[in-house]
């Protein structure tokens, strides 16, 4: 089994592509850059496929497949972090999503970025991102995972600020980077705590140690090691996956090119948080508090972002907020212990949200870079393929059966309903689903229906090239059939997805409870309710934006404060600015700069310098330049050495005289 023994090939190929393009690509024409970038990604996709095939055909006695150790990276005392890659069911899913969607988006980018400057740079970053993401999902210990974690953060920063001449873009990049650092700080603390507790950061050993029943279950409100570690890890997750309170960077990240938004800020990177939580579920299930916190935060984020999404006018921002809220769904799933459901939603969401972004990119591309939905409309006839694919994606995200979104979201809501005290979560989740379908259809209607609101003389609408449409179609198909693997679960059959992930995500609570006859009726009912809410949202959207297009403005006027609050995203940015940034600025100006730097550090340095000068002035005179005097000094030195050796035997080893 060649690839399984050489897992390193999969991440290394994109790195190579990135290096080649980044170092040499500057002078090359786009076609060569394409060949390199697509070649690298496509090859690694094929390798991933092969690896998955080999892994699935692995005889059961070989399972679980042991981590592949390639070289020791850090070795310090008892601490050991190797470059170890592993592959298991969870990794398989992530691998497929990352390489597959990544490859499609690469193809799409060749069309979308065709006319941009810095083409090679873009693809170099993109490949680099692929590399780090693959490292992240294949890492066999927290340290290597953190490498990928930071690497994708870096790439996201680079790509958000791709148009670095645009101030807003570079600011957005910095914002993303800084906010992520806050989360990473927690993540690192969590790692430290874990290492201190288990003396290792390798997944297999660590989880084996953690699943030892000797570690008791930490009840609600009890802050043991697990709770704190999990909360810290989750802090990192909130940063990376844009959950409350650290979600603020994601909407601004839309400054980057659309394929980036699709790949990094919808499909792959932002789901890393979910992946980490799922990966370390064994730690989480130990702690009631952590689970509850995850669930509540996820739920709150989902609802919160959805409400903001209601009123946004920038098409990509709407999608961004919907991403945030969908991520919230995933965390909700994890929080209620349905990790497989969370991962499932992660996968389906990757499909349709990537599709949405790409389609939105296609729309923007079509009408010449305009992103404001108020300046669109009536595009459905002009760009048919884009419209159809985007509509499919909307159906999927809204949770209309039998598309992917329906199954995953239903599974989440169901398992949220299952756990005790989960009903409020379920209720909010349901409401969010309603809102989701509303603002998604609002987006559709504003964009594709009604009268064209753009200047038809200047803007000449044109369908995108097939290099862009191809991925759209592929993703559309995926977002249709992507969820069917879980379909049997709905008709009471086994949940194939859960059972596939079962070897990894065996958690004492949650998903197992599903397969019970009693629960089955309930699931049907809940599904119907969910679909009903989705349809309701769709209806409202239709009524508001097709029947009386004037209505929304009146509503906005009638409840101005609410509208403004939503429009300004609850003034969260302003709040942060006031509470955190201003004080920080003040401290750094008045304390760090004026006092510490100027007074203390510079003072010391200058003092040393002047001291050296004065000493030199006095000592200078010994340097007469007369060789004979120097000779005398040499002799004196020799005398001193000999005298020491002679009178002070203890010093002989020091002087080097062994006897």
């Amino acid at each position: 089994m060649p690839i399984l023994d050489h897992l390193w090939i999969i991440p290394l190929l994109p790195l190579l592509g990135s290096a080649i393009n980044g170092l040499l690509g500057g002078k090359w024409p786009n076609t060569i850059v394409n060949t390199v970038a697509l070649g690298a990604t496509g090859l690694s996709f094929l390798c991933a496929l092969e690896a998955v095939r080999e892994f699935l055909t692995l005889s059961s006695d070989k399972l679980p497949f042991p981590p592949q150790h390639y070289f020791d990276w850090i070795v310090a005392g008892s601490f050991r972090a190797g470059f170890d890659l592993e592959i298991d069911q969870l990794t398989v899913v992530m691998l497929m999503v990352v390489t597959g969607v990544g490859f499609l988006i690469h193809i799409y980018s060749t069309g979308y970025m065709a006319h941009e400057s810095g083409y090679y740079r873009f693809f170099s970053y993109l490949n680099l991102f692929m590399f780090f993401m693959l490292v992240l999902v294949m890492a066999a210990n927290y340290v290597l995972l953190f490498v990928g974690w930071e690497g994708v953060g870096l790439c996201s920063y680079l790509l958000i600020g791709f148009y670095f001449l645009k101030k807003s873009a570079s600011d957005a990049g910095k914002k993303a980077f800084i906010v992520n650092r806050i989360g990473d700080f927690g993540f690192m603390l969590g790692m430290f705590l874990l290492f201190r507790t288990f003396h290792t950061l390798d997944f297999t050993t660590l989880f084996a140690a953690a699943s030892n029943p000797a570690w008791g279950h930490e009840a609600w409100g009890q802050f043991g090691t697990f709770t704190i570690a999990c909360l810290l890890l989750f802090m990192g997750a909130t940063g990376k996956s844009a959950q409350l309170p650290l979600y603020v960077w994601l909407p601004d990240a839309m400054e980057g090119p659309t394929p980036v938004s699709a790949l990094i800020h919808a499909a792959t990177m932002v789901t890393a948080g979910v992946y980490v939580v799922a990966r370390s579920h064994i730690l989480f299930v130990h702690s009631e508090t952590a689970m509850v916190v995850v669930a509540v935060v996820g739920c709150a984020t989902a609802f919160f972002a959805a409400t903001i999404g209601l009123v946004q006018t920038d098409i990509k921002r709407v999608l961004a907020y919907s991403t945030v809220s969908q991520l919230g769904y995933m965390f909700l799933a994890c929080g209620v212990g349905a990790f497989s459901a969370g991962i499932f939603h992660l996968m389906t969401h990757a499909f349709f949200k990537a599709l949405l972004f790409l389609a939105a990119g296609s729309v923007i591309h079509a009408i010449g870079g305009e992103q404001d939905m108020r300046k669109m409309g009536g595009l459905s006839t002009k760009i048919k393929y884009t419209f159809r694919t985007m509509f499919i994606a909307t159906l999927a995200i809204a949770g209309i059966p039998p598309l992917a979104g329906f199954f995953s979201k239903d599974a989440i809501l169901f398992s949220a309903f299952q756990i005790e005290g989960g009903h409020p979560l379920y209720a909010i989740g349901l409401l969010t689903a309603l809102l989701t379908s509303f603002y998604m259809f609002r987006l559709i209607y504003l964009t594709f229906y009604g009268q064209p609101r753009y200047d038809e003389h200047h803007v000449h609408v044109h369908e995108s090239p097939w290099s862009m449409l191809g991925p759209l179609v592929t993703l559309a198909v995926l977002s249709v059939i992507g969820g069917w693997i879980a379909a049997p679960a709905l008709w009471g059959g086994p949940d194939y997805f859960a059972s596939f992930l079962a070897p990894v995500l065996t958690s004492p609570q949650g998903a197992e409870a599903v397969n019970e006859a009693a629960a089955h009726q309930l699931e049907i009912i809940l599904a119907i309710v969910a679909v009903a809410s989705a349809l309701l949202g769709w209806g409202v959207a239709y009524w508001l934006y097709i029947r009386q297009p004037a209505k929304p403005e009146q509503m906005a006027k009638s409840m101005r404060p609410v509208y403004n609050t939503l429009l300004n995203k609850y003034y969260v940015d302003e709040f942060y600015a006031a509470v955190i940034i201003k004080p920080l600025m003040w401290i750094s100006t008045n304390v760090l700069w004026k006092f510490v730097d100027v007074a203390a550090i510079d003072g010391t340095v200058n003092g040393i310098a002047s001291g050296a000068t004065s000493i030199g002035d006095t000592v200078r005179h010994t340097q007469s330049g007369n060789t004979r005097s120097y000779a005398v000094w040499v002799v004196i030195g020799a005398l001193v050495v000999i005298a020491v050796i002679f009178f002070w035997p203890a010093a002989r080893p020091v002087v080097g005289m062994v006897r």
Partner: protein
Amino acid sequence: MTPQLAIFFVLAALAVLGALNLIIQRHPIHSALSLIVVMIALAGLYLLMGSEFVAAVQIIVYGGAIMVLFVFVIMLLNAGVEERTNVSKLAGVAGIPLAVALLGFLAAAIARSNESAQAGVEAGTLANTKEISTMLFKDFVYPFELTSFLILVAILGAIVLAQREKS
């Protein structure tokens, strides 16, 4: 008073006188000549101790190459009698006592060391050339290579130093 001892004393006297002459003479050529005398005397002592190879090398390299270089340079620069300037007070004052002190220390160290208690050196006990060569090319091969490199560097340095700037 065995013949060896006699030879030793003769050669030692020769060496010391040569060294003294090196100091007394005021013309570098004469100093060089007296230094050559010292070296030849030392070579004789080596022979007396039975290490012929070192003796030969001493004469060939020191006497035949290094000192020739010195003489050559003196002739090239046409160096005259050295002038007795006394700019350095320190050397004038502290020189002699320091040298005496150094000598005293060394003598005391020798007197105290248990080596001198040993019987001593009878000629030709060992150190036939073969042994030296095996040691040089087996145990000390890396230092040996290093010295070859050192010589290369020295040659380059000398060339760079002595060549006139092409102007």
